[in-house]
Every structure is written in C-alpha cells, then in structure tokens.
C-alpha cells in the first residue's frame, strides 16, 4: 500500500479540522475549536486502482496571532488549500500560503477547497475569482464540512494526483 503525507493549509477558522473530521470520521461540530500545532489522522482511499494510505496533517491556521511552521511540510506529497467562501480575505491568505508552500516544497499537487458551501448565500468569494483560479490549472472543489458535500471528492482528487 502506498502511504502519502498530505497537509491542510489555510488561515484560521476556515474549517480545516472540520473537513478532516468529516472525511476521517464522518462527524461535524458547530463549535469552533482553534487548532494549535498539528494533529495527524490516517485514512485509506482508493485512487487509480490502488489503495493509498493518506497521512493527513491538520495544521494550525496561519493568521496574525500564529505563524505556520513550514517545517511541517517536509515530506509532504500534496496539500489541501482551504478557503472559507464566506470570508473573502481567507482567499488572499490561502494564496499567500500557496506561494510559501511552493517556495518551500516546490510544485507538489494540491487541491483548493472552498469550504462552507452550505452558506453559499453568504459567499463573498466570487465566481470570476474561482474561474481565475481554475484558469491557472488548479483543481477547485466546493465543500461543506457541515453537510459533507464535496469533502470525500476533494481528498480523493488529491490522492489521484499523488499516484
């Protein structure tokens, strides 16, 4: 079985831990609990006809209070770049993190998750901005950790890029 380390990147409160909890355990909590440091989960998915053991490193969000240690990215095969669709500024933060990640570990595969799709009426990230990211060749997936929509697909899409 292939084992791959992947990370979640994004600013705080975009739903990184909730996405991992939804994917790994199928659960969701409305209560926001900030992540300090790192939590590692494991889940096996099927990609391109083989089983891939995903080691999911759920990292703390980077914001004005806490920086993300790029050291965590060592050995990372791919990552999920998470944006909160209801907060436009989280997209800018994600783009900045993507630059940092690229500078640290090079061109490794990643998938952009625009989370909180269940709150789409509150979205601030615009369609043309999403289209612009797609035009760069990025894989974009709208997700809702709350309902589970798009979550499995996002992780499996990344796994496909890794094998």
């Amino acid at each position, binding site marked *: 079985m292939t084992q791959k380390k992947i990370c979640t990147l994004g600013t705080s409160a975009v739903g990184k831990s909730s996405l991992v909890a939804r994917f790994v355990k199928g659960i969701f909590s409305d209560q926001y609990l*900030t992540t300090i440091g790192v939590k590692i989960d494991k889940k096996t998915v099927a990609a391109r006809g083989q089983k891939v053991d995903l080691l999911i490193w759920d990292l703390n969000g980077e914001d004005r209070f806490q920086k993300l240690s790029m050291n965590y990215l060592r*050995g990372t095969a791919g990552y999920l770049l998470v944006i909160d669709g209801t907060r436009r500024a989280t997209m800018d933060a994600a783009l900045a993190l993507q630059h940092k990640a690229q500078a640290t570990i090079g061109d490794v595969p990643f998938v952009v998750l625009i989370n909180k799709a269940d709150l789409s*009426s509150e979205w601030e990230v615009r369609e043309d901005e999403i289209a612009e990211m797609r035009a760069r060749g990025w894989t974009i997936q709208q997700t809702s950790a709350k309902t589970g929509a798009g979550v499995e697909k996002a992780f499996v899409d990344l796994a496909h890029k890794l094998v």
Partner: protein
Amino acid sequence: MNPLLLPPNLLAQLDMAVLRRENDGRFVLLGEAPTWLRDIYPKLPSNGAPWNPEQHLLYLGHFIEEADTIWAGDGSAQLVSDIWTEEATSGKEWLLEATAMKLDGQNILLIKFPSSDFKTLRSVYQEARDQGLRQYTLLKEIDKREVLLHCTVHDLSAPLAGIRASLWLLKEDEMVKPVGTEFLQIGLEQVDKMQGLIQDTLVTFSTRSKPLLQTAANLEDAPNIEESIREVTDALSAMASLKSVTFRLALEGPPDTGWKVAGDHARLERILFNLLENALRHTRDGSVIAVRLRDEGHAIRVSIKDQGEGVPADMMNKLFEKFSQGGSNAGKVGLGLYFCRITVEDWGGEIGCLPNMRDGACFWFTLPKAGLEMQSEK
C-alpha cells in the same frame, strides 16, 4: 534495575513518558506508562521491550528526524517539539509535547503534557479568534442593514420618477387650469428637491450587503408575477409614453399555469420595477419592450428585452455587483440590479443578462413556483 533510580511509577504519576533510544533505533519505556500513553496505545509492551513509538504517535516520526542531531551531539543541547494532538482509542484527545536530550550518555525522549503556559496561550488564541469571527459577523450584519437602508432609499427614487413624469405631462399638455399651474410647478420643484435628497443620501453609502428578506407564508399570499408585471408596467406607463415605448407581455405555458412564485409582493414588484425601468431608460424612442413569462415546470422564467444599445461586454460580469453602473447612468448609484440579484437568489432563483445581444439588452430571472417551493421546504 531502574537506571534513573527513581520509583518506577513516579514519572507515570507525573503524566510523563520517558523513553530511551536504543542503538537499533527502537525505544524502551523507562518506568511505568502514564495513563494517556496506554489510552493511545493499549498494546504498549509492559515488560520494557523495545518498540517504535513513532508508529503509533505519528508526529514523533517527524520529530525524531530532528532529534537525531541532538542525540548525535555532545549532550549540551535539548530540542523541544511543537505541540501536537494524539487521539486515543477512547476518542479522547491528548495534547503532547516531546523533548529530546542526552542524559548520562543515553538518548532520551521525554513526552509530556504541554506546560500550563501553553493552556493560557491556547485560551488566548481561542478567544482572539472567536472575537475576530464575532466582529466579522457583526460587521456583516451592520453591512446588511445598511444596504437594506440603501435599497429602501433607492427604491423611493423610482416611484418619484413616475410622479415627476406624470406632473410633467400635466404641465406639458396644459391639462391643468391656469389657477393650478402654480401648484403644479411647486409640485415639480418639490419632487426635484426630493430626488436630489435621495441622490445625496445614496452617494454617502458605500458598503455591500443584502436585505433582510421574507417570503409569503402560504400559497394564497404568494405573489402572482403576471399581475405584478401588469401593475409595474401601468406605473411606468407615463414614463413610457414620453418615449413612445410600448410594453408587450407574452405568456408561455399551459392554460392552468398560476404564475405564483416564491417571494413577496413588494419586493417582487421592486425587482420588476428596477428591470423594467432600466429597460425603459435604455430602449430607443418608439420601440417595444418585450416581456415574456415562461412556465418551466418548477420555476417561472421572466425575460425583459429592450431595443437599446445593449450591455457593453466589459460590463457583463459586473452588472449585478453593488454600485456597478454604465457611463450613461448619471443619477444612478448602481444598487438596482444588485438588489435584484440578492433578492432573487435568496428566494432560490437565478438572474442574468444574455450575452452578445446586438439589438438591445435581455435581462432574465427565474423564481421557483410558490407551491413547489413551499412543498420542498416541508
């Protein structure tokens, strides 16, 4: 024999796990295992047999790579890991911190709970981020209310334009007796003042949001979009006559189509007023504005086509944004189409403008049929 000469359960009582790294890279637990370690890895060898903790505490795999430099050193340095979370088989989460050090020539890995300083730090981060989210939510709420106010003020301008046009027609066609002319002129001046006031108010606003919306509670109260169109075109008839413009309404659907849609009367009429007044403003003098209602099964589609110059290509993507307006829209602040979009979308519909129209603009929107929308909500 305990190499540290300590009671074997002392470290466990202090919730610390002390491991010694053997030459083969595996680790031996010194003393007894703390509760949390047994909780995370119940199969932990109890006889002091070597094992690989990084296979169960995955973060250690990352940390041990860095710790190797400490163990290879002269023993003067220590390395403390970041905080990480381990989930026990019971589902409980343990926050841990590791320290690598060299002690009496032995390579030691100490794993324990983070210090109490960390707990304080964590609660500060939590509170700061919670406050940040609360502040953001509050600002959005303020934004919402502000735009609701904008839209209301903006909405006053359309009927006022109708009043002005009517008064102007009375004056131009000399339909008022000479004794009433003075009052007519006063009326026109007051309308102009009010329009100026509205414009001044609107230009002071500059934020984005959406109105607080309500939909009709039952099918009987749901608005009939055909009737709403007729009411709005009647209200605009005076303005239309100034440009010799005709509204032409066409209905496409089975005879039993009820034309009732999701939403409420007042806001639906405002959407229609904004779109029709927009078409009227841009269409050529003497032209026809075609309004078409189509029954699409679950939804009603409305299209409004004028015979003006159409929408410039560079405006298409911005049409429904707040404060978006073409160069010829003097006196408008670009809230009308924005209001239409956020309202239609909140009612579960869609709105747009057909691209590449050469002979005028064609705006359209869909709204769920009232009965169907209510059934799906149940």
